[in-house]
């Protein structure tokens, strides 16, 4: 008797659900979804979307025991190496996810189907590109029917993108607060008045928000109304051009120019890169996944991703993550996923029962992690004791490549310039002692032309 674990996020749609069995992820398609699933396949939509890399491919499998009654088919979808969420994406990532969703909807209409939801959580990044992971998102298109996911699209994509573009890229974080997308009334209030001059934002956000409030109690007003296929196509096209017209507006942040302004000499930087590459190569067995914590624009992350390691480049600066993503997209990088995460407040478990969207720790441990030029920011910039950093890192990875930056380093001096030095314990000896409680220190390598040291460590908590 196998024990199944249904994914806690898989409860909204009665068409089916995801479950784990013996370490494999499956999707059950329920009988109630039979007609739509058959149409997805017979119309050629499935093949077309998979061919274009827009839909997760799957295999139909024959499980002797269904996970629950009402099973019509069981699918084994291709595994996504790392599940990420819209509030962890940069502007460009959310924009590409939005455009993929609309592209999919247009293709679906061409095949006599329509998306019945447009949740940003249904999109994941696979081999560097956004793909729809919910195979059960399609339904037969009925002539005259409106797009049932219109509001969800506006809340999950258009509203946060407009806010990031017109107000501040940090407002992407609103998606973390509002699990079903940014309420349009809120977006309408926060956007500058001038956005009413843009037809798309005037209608899809401002008017939409007013309409929701005004007509909420008048279901009779829509009874029997229909939308022609031409009008529906025009609506999707308009949403497409609205999204395409939104731009990431941010003056380069202090962090995107970090390597130009930091105290590294070019020899030290070069030596650091050589050492990091060596330390990655020393990890045995070779890591499948690597998290680069505080990755900036992904310079060192690429030492891992270009070796075929699934690498996540975490940073808390929206401009850095955006730059890293745009470069990865331009270069067609398939093993690098830049994500916006503030390590002093990493993504928590959110949604129903805290379980719908996983915390960062739940998505680990990574085979390896890198924390380069980071410890002083956590210890001095955020007052986390070295023991606390060591304990957290010990839980999130099996191997750790970490750089210690001493107090005499000019970057640390810069952090201490405007505050009292209350960090008597911030020493290399204390660092080694605290990390030694959670890790075995395998190698120590001083970086030439600097006061810094690189370490390769192996977690004792996550063998």
């Amino acid at each position: 008797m196998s024990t199944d674990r249904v994914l806690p996020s898989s409860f909204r749609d009665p068409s089916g659900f995801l479950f784990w069995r013996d370490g494999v992820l499956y999707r059950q398609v329920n009988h109630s979804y039979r007609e739509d699933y058959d149409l997805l396949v017979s119309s050629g939509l499935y093949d077309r979307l998979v061919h274009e890399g827009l839909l997760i491919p799957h295999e139909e499998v024959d499980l002797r025991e269904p996970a629950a009654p009402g099973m019509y088919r069981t699918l084994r979808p291709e595994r996504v190496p790392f599940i990420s969420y819209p509030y962890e994406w940069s502007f460009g990532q959310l924009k590409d996810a939005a455009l993929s969703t609309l592209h999919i909807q247009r293709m679906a209409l061409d095949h006599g189907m329509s998306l019945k939801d447009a949740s940003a959580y249904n999109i994941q990044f696979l081999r560097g590109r956004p793909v729809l992971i919910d195979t059960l998102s399609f339904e037969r298109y009925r002539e005259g029917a409106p797009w049932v996911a219109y509001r969800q699209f506006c809340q999950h994509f258009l509203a946060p993108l407009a806010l990031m573009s017109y107000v501040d890229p940090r407002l992407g974080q609103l998606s973390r607060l509002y699990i079903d997308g940014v309420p349009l009334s809120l977006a309408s209030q926060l956007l500058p008045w001038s956005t009413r001059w843009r037809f798309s934002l005037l209608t899809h956000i401002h008017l939409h928000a007013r309409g929701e409030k005004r007509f909420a109690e008048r279901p009779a007003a829509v009874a029997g109304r229909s939308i022609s296929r031409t009008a529906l196509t025009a609506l999707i096209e308009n949403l497409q051009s609205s999204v395409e017209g939104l731009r990431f507006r941010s003056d380069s942040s202090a962090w995107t120019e970090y390597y130009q302004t930091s105290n590294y000499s070019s020899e030290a930087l070069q030596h650091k890169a050589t050492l990091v590459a060596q330390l990655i190569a020393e990890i045995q067995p070779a890591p499948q996944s690597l998290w680069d914590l505080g990755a900036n624009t992904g310079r060192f992350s690429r030492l891992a991703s270009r070796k075929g390691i699934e690498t996540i480049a975490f940073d808390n600066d929206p401009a850095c993550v955006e730059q890293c993503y745009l470069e990865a997209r331009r270069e067609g990088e398939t093993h690098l996923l830049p994500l916006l995460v503030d390590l002093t407040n990493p993504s928590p478990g959110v949604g129903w029962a805290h379980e719908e969207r996983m915390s960062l720790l739940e998505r680990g441990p990574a085979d390896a992690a890198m924390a380069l030029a980071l410890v002083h920011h956590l210890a001095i910039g955020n007052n986390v004791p070295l023991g606390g950093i060591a304990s957290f890192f010990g839980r999130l990875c099996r191997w750790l490549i970490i750089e210690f930056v001493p107090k005499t380093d000019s970057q640390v001096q810069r952090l201490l310039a405007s505050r009292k030095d209350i960090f008597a314990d911030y020493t290399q000896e204390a660092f080694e002692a605290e990390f030694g409680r959670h890790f075995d220190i395998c190698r120590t390598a001083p970086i030439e032309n600097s006061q810094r040291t690189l370490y390769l460590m192996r977690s004792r908590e996550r063998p």
Partner: protein
Amino acid sequence: MTRLQSIASSLLVCACILLAFPPPAYAYLDPGTGSLIVQLLVAGLLGVALTIKLFWRRIRAGVASLFRREELSRVDRESHEH
């Protein structure tokens, strides 16, 4: 009116009603009444704009092809004259 005719006409009326009022699609999302009204309105506007655009493009293409035909026949005539 014969009985058959009356049945046929009522069936026709039923068909018209069914076509005009599409059945609500099977959906687990609540599209929201206000949102649906906005969608009807915006899609209607955009649909009309798209139709006019396509119509206009067709007129322009038609006029252009008329001129092209004249141009072609002129070139044709000239080449014959030479």
